[in-house]
Structure formats: C-alpha cells, structure tokens
C-alpha cells in the first residue's frame, strides 16, 4: 500500500510518502488510519482528530469508510485550501 501525506499531516508524520505493509487486517481507510496512528507520536498526532482529515483513494476523494486493497494509493491531508 502506498501512503501519501500532505500539508500539516505530512509535517506531523515526518514524511511525504511511504510503502506500508500493515500488520493488522485492513478493510477500510479507517482501519488503515487506526494502524498508522500506532506507528509513533508523529503519526498519533497526525491522526488524532479525523474530523480535520480528508482522504483520497487512488487520487479520488473518498472517506474513512471506503474499502481499500493492497495496490491502492491512499492519501491523508487537511481540507483543501486552493484558489
């Protein structure tokens, strides 16, 4: 699974992207977020408040209930502020 982080999520996690192989069963984005949050204080801080996070699966907006598979690209970021 390829994970990408943007803006303050990236800063808290300490990296822009990574390949992960979760050690717990992952069916949805929520499962993945739960597992990522256990990987250290930076991750914990990044995933502390899901209301402040937005998600994309394979570069399309999604939500925490979306089902994901091993080859998917999952991104976590704050609400967008373009324009």
């Amino acid at each position, binding site marked *: 699974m390829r994970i990408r982080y943007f*803006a303050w999520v990236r800063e808290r996690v300490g990296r822009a992207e990574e390949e992960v192989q979760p050690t717990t069963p992952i069916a949805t984005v929520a499962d993945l977020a739960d597992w990522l949050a256990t990987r250290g204080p930076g991750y914990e801080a990044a995933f502390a408040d899901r209301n402040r996070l937005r998600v994309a699966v394979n*570069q399309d907006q999604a939500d925490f209930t979306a089902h994901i598979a091993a080859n998917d690209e999952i*991104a976590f*970021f704050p*609400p*967008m*502020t*373009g*324009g």
Partner: protein
Amino acid sequence: MTVRIQSEDFDIAAELAALFAGRDDMGAIVTFSGLVRGGDVTAMTLEHYPGMTEKALQKIEAEANARWPLKATLILHRVGRLLPGERIVLVAAASQTRHAAFEAASFLMDYLKTDAPFWKNEEHADGTSAWVDARKADSSAKARWR
C-alpha cells in the same frame, strides 16, 4: 478545456489569446485572478498532490461544461512559494452569453476552493508560518450549486 499546474508566473493576455485564437464564436469571457494578499503575510507556499490535482480540476471543468454552454474553459494554478501581489490562479470561462460565463467562472472557483488538492502555508512578518485553515464560507459557497 485546459488545466495546468505550474510554478512559473503566467501572462493573462497570452493565456486568453492562446485559448481563443482563431475563434469568433464566443461573445463573453469571464476571468478570475487570485493574488497573494500582503499585510501580515510575507510569503505563501502552495503544496499540491500531483496527479490528483489535474484529475480533480478536469472533473471540475467537465462539470462546468455540462452545466453551461461553454465555448472554452481554462484553469491555471501555481504552486510553490509566492510573494504578496503575485498571481496564484487564473480561471476563465467563455460562452456566447455573459451570464453563463459569469456563473461558470464563479462555479469553477467555488469548486476549486473545496475540491482541488492544494494547501496554503503562510509566512508571517514575525518569522512564524502556519497552514491556512479551510473556510466555512468556501463550503457554503460550493453548496449553492447543488
């Protein structure tokens, strides 16, 4: 329909000229230019999600073209570090009638603000920097098009 992400500045007149070259079927062209505002902000850095950004903007553009009889649309967004007064974004919508062009350009901006993966980080005069929070006004602006 054109979507472009770039760090360099753009020339509004040249962009419009390229889009409308050799055409005389569009009576009305509305553009929106977004600039970095000064004051407490000394610089702004725009981060984006390459790949998803283009996809999201093309979707927004297709939606505008489905809603209004547009002759041409353009979305040009800069990324990287920008100074006050610099251009951030250029959106253009061309139609035969002015109301379609005004509405489409306004729609493109409202959707771009909420649905395109850009994030702004502002540097302040005191040396601090902060990520810009999404504004509630932007989601309600988007809601009016439902």
